[in-house]
């Protein structure tokens, strides 16, 4: 176990190094002039020269890369050329919003997806199965931003049950933040009205984001359950008179969940990279929006920062997923 961990932890810096080289190279190869963009249309030549020097963009590319990585190793994620804000604290702020959305949407996805998969497998080719498959296929077939707009119109504009967009009610006092996860922060602060408000603001984005989880979990788990339900050990268990409830929960689910956990690792990593469309339409201040804006403005250091940050998160989530395999099924080696 420890050897496995050590080996994986040693590989992580290499992965991030490769990612940093690719991102740096690609961002510099893209045509465009971020300095002129940041300096503004009426910038005088001396302003452009000053800004170029300030961000080291007048130096050779290898030197620029070396300077950036040196800063990064010292904990300096750099500055945005357009806003002059520090990249590191911004990444943390935006990531907290994305993390909260991912956690809630994943919980919703699992809470809906797992029962749907079980129902679907248990009553295969009967109406619960048809219903479940309709939901899972429909969830990935419809563009998520369209679902978001429909929910905004129905739940916010027409029924006035939920807010149209945003993360918290602007007419209320913004809660004290400790972790950046507002649900957690409001609970820590014992602020129940703010907790409920946060929850209201989370419903539409989390529902939208959970659709992919529901669809993938339902389909993956259903398929695995149907595969395992015909295995000899299940037939033996049935022949021995073990109750059906126990067979499904202890025999089938435990074996069928392995592939789902693997897929969830990938999916959570993907979601933590930000859901740009959901964040844009519902004005959720997540890391996807931050990265997109940086890319559109060719803002080099935020581009590098967000890519490496998301890369770190994906690598860590995958590591945790690998470790979870063993927890679910001790037969699986970690070598």
């Amino acid at each position, binding site marked *: 176990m420890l050897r496995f961990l050590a080996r994986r932890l040693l590989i992580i810096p290499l992965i991030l190094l490769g990612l940093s080289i690719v991102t740096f190279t690609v961002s510099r190869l*893209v*045509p*465009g*002039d*971020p300095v*002129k*963009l*940041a*300096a*503004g*249309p*009426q*910038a*005088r*030549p*001396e*302003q*452009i*020269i*000053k*800004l170029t020097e300030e961000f080291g963009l007048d130096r050779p590319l290898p030197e620029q890369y070396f300077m950036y990585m040196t800063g990064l190793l010292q904990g300096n994620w750099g500055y*945005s050329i*357009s*806003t*002059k*804000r520090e990249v590191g604290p*911004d990444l943390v*702020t*935006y990531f907290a*919003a994305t993390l909260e959305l991912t956690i809630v949407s994943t919980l919703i996805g699992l809470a809906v997806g797992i029962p749907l998969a079980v129902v679907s497998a248990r009553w295969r080719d009967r109406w619960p199965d048809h219903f479940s498959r309709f939901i899972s296929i429909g969830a990935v077939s419809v563009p998520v931003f369209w679902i978001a*707009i429909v929910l*905004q*119109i129905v739940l*916010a*504009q027409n029924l*006035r049950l939920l*807010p*149209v*967009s*945003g*993360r*918290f009610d*602007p*007419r209320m*006092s*913004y809660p004290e933040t400790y972790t950046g996860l507002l649900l957690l922060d409001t609970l820590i602060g014992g602020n129940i009205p703010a907790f409920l408000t946060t929850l209201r603001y989370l419903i539409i984005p989390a529902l939208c984001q959970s659709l992919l989880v529901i669809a993938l979990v339902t389909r993956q788990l259903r398929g695995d359950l149907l595969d395992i339900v015909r295995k000899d050990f299940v037939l033996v268990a049935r022949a021995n008179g073990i109750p059906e409830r126990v067979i499904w929960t202890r025999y089938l689910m435990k074996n069928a969940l392995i592939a789902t956990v693997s897929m969830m690792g990938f999916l959570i990593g993907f979601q933590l990279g930000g859901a740009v469309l959901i964040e*844009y*339409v*519902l*004005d959720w*201040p997540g890391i996807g*929006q*931050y990265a997109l*804006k940086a890319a*559109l*403005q*060719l803002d080099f250091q935020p581009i590098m920062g967000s890519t490496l940050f998301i890369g770190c998160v994906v690598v860590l989530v995958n590591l945790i997923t690998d470790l979870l395999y063993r927890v679910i099924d001790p037969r699986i080696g970690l070598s």
Partner: protein
Amino acid sequence: MAQNHFDPTRKMVEDFQAGRVSRREFLKFVTALTAGVATAGVPVIAAAKNVAKAPVRGTLNQVEPKILIYGGSQDIATIDPFDRTDYSIAAIIRQLYDRLFRFEGGWPQPIEPGLVQEWSSSADASEWTFKITDQARFHDGSPLTSEDVVFSYQQTLKAQKQRSSLLSGFLDVDGITAPDATTVVMKLKIPYGSFDRLLAFLEQPIASKAIALANEVDGDGGAAYLIDHEAGSGPFRIKNWQIGSVYELEAVEDYWQGWPGEGRLSGVVWQKTEDAGTRKLGLLAGNFDISDTISSTDIEEINANETTMVSVNYGLLAGYLKYNTQAGPTADPNFRKFLAYSFDRQAFADSQQGYVSIMTGPLPEGVPGYDPDLDPQYSYDPVKAKEHLDMTEFKDGGISIDFVYVSGLDFEEAGGLILLAELQKYNITLNLVPKNWPDIVGACTVPESGPHIAFIFDAFPPLADTWLIEKYSSKSWDRPTGGSYQACSFYKNETVDSLLDELRLTTDTARIDAIVQEVQTIISNDAPDMPLYVTPNITGLNKRVKGFTYYGDISVDFWRLWLDDAT
């Protein structure tokens, strides 16, 4: 020495004659003025000021103050008062800080005094003296003095960021001094007769020198601290600042200039909402009191709603088709005129539901010197187009030219499609090339990389010289660091260059008018670009929002607003 003093009586009469003030407001003013005269011991001017424009401390706030929620299309990534002036940044900075002048009292933008009470210039307009009020207080209670004014301007000039671009052409760090606590003197590098108007438009926020320096890091004058903190004296202060999400201000109840309306706001929340559809839904659902940058396709729906309405106004954001006058087919003036006569502006206006103000020449309406009858003007005329094409080497067509526009902007693509359809008739291929904005900015640096045609928007202060020099003087692009996208025509005409040099230096108003007229005529003849249209600022408002005055900007001046649920 020319001297200016803000005379509200004269201004009210002028505003009334110009139609900027309603008959009712004018009568109210006259009544108040009469009452002021009749009241012994009350200075007439003071009474007039109260009624006219300048607000009074402790105004009659009859409506309970409330928080206004604003759905803004743009984030407020920084409020560093020495850095930059995007519309969202400017909208918030205007509320946090005071400036020498105000200009948000209407459209076209009239200058109103802010901190300045009197100002004057030397006969050659090379030295300007500003007398500022001694009443202004920063939010920490300390008085605002001329030292703070000098510090703020100097910091901007030292920082050499976007905010300093135009100012640094006229003023050096050493050129601004404070002889006493209420006097500021600016000695210009070159004389400039419209310097007061330029200052009004540049809106340099006056920051507390003490607060800024107390938070200085590595000699930055407090700039890093002021990215998300304030050191101002404006009508609002920061209450809550959530980067990338919501920005909340609370009113300074005893703001030194008072509150101009029948009521006031207790606070403002700027909720960043980038999606136009969400801004509309937020307004219709009652989540937002104001949504800016509404799509023209949503106007009908918002107006049909019982509680909401739309205000459509035109400002200074003008769209041009810029031709590369130095390279490719567009280097030939006749080919450019062929393009100009080939573009069906009415078809373009129709594609935008009619919400465009078609331009007649290089200057948009709202800039002094705008000439609605400029000659020549280009309207869709296939006969004239063919005449000019026949004068070029491309009369048989068979060529291909690029039309570059910002990726994802449908209205720019629509312009390209209209031209594409027309050019096909002449066997000319128009390649529609969508590009990201940084790519276009980079391409517009030198003629060699400049597109044949680029759809570009320009916005400058309402000063003719700035508009003309930044876009049409060869000095704006023919230099070691290249040009900006605003000079993407790479236009070079020695007569125009010479006239524009003179325009910047002269203080003779008659000569200024003559030069502006002459330059516009020459430019129109040369057709280095096609002035297309001024884009509307479409603002969605809940009907409970009161005090809204359009002043040429996308955003609103929250200081003048209040919410009244009774109506």
